[in-house]
């Protein structure tokens, strides 16, 4: 007679693969953040977890000197960045193939995540993201909607994460 806050719903949570996009790790000291932002033509939010989008390119602040940039395949961010390298030394590394991205959604998605995420995912504001842990894997968790998440997982960790998700989905489907 357990009565959950988030009702176990008959429709199970969805776990889908997201097609790869361009993914870059940008590292630059706070002093030169503005210069880079200008060069790339998008805001580089200073608060860890905050996101900003401009013409298809999204910037997520992962740390005080670290941003994760995602953009459609073929977008050229390297050239504008290189142009300001002398004034604003930085590191821009292509990591498009380092992680794979899963989309997790559905009414019970918070239960799905609560099975392996120690942090309070329910408290994450929509439109933010966080680098956190899912079981033993380090992941970047994006909250795109109340019941809509993306999870970036290092390629070789993905099978482990997938089989955990499958177990929990089965458990949720069982209604207990």
């Amino acid at each position, binding site marked *: 007679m357990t009565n959950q806050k988030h009702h176990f719903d008959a429709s199970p949570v969805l776990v889908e693969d997201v097609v790869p996009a361009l993914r870059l790790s940008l590292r630059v000291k706070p002093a030169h953040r503005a210069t880079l932002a200008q060069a790339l033509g998008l805001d580089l939010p200073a608060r860890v977890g905050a996101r900003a989008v401009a013409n298809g390119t999204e910037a997520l602040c992962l740390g005080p000197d670290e941003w994760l940039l995602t953009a459609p395949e073929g977008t050229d961010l390297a050239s504008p960045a290189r142009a300001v390298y002398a004034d604003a030394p930085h590191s821009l590394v292509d990591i498009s193939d380092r992680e794979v991205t899963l989309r997790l959604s559905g009414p019970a998605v918070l239960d799905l995540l609560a099975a392996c995420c120690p*942090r309070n995912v329910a408290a994450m504001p929509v439109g933010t993201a966080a*680098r956190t842990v899912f079981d033993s894997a380090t992941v970047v968790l994006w909250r795109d909607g109340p019941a809509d998440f993306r999870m970036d997982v290092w390629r070789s960790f993905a099978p482990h994460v997938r089989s955990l998700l499958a177990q929990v989905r089965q458990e949720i489907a069982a209604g207990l």
Partner: protein
Amino acid sequence: MLLIHCPYCEDTLPELEFTYAGEAHIARPADPSTLSDEEWRDFLFIRTNARGPHYERWRHVGCGRFFNALRDTVSDRFLMTYKAGLPRPPLTNEAAE
């Protein structure tokens, strides 16, 4: 499982997102070659291992930053956390208890 406040993320988060990184404020000597074997040993191996308030370092997987903390090793409670590079804060009364 401890709760730890990351001074960079300005958020209080579960221990599983952090790794312990040993005693804080043990700066690497500018020129190790000038140190005696004893001084070098002290830097390498000697630790306060305080019973009570302990200055120590942690790293947060979220922002990837190392930071400092003052934690009571008897209660395991964090008295404060602060950014790397900041000077060692004095013991508060609470901490001194």
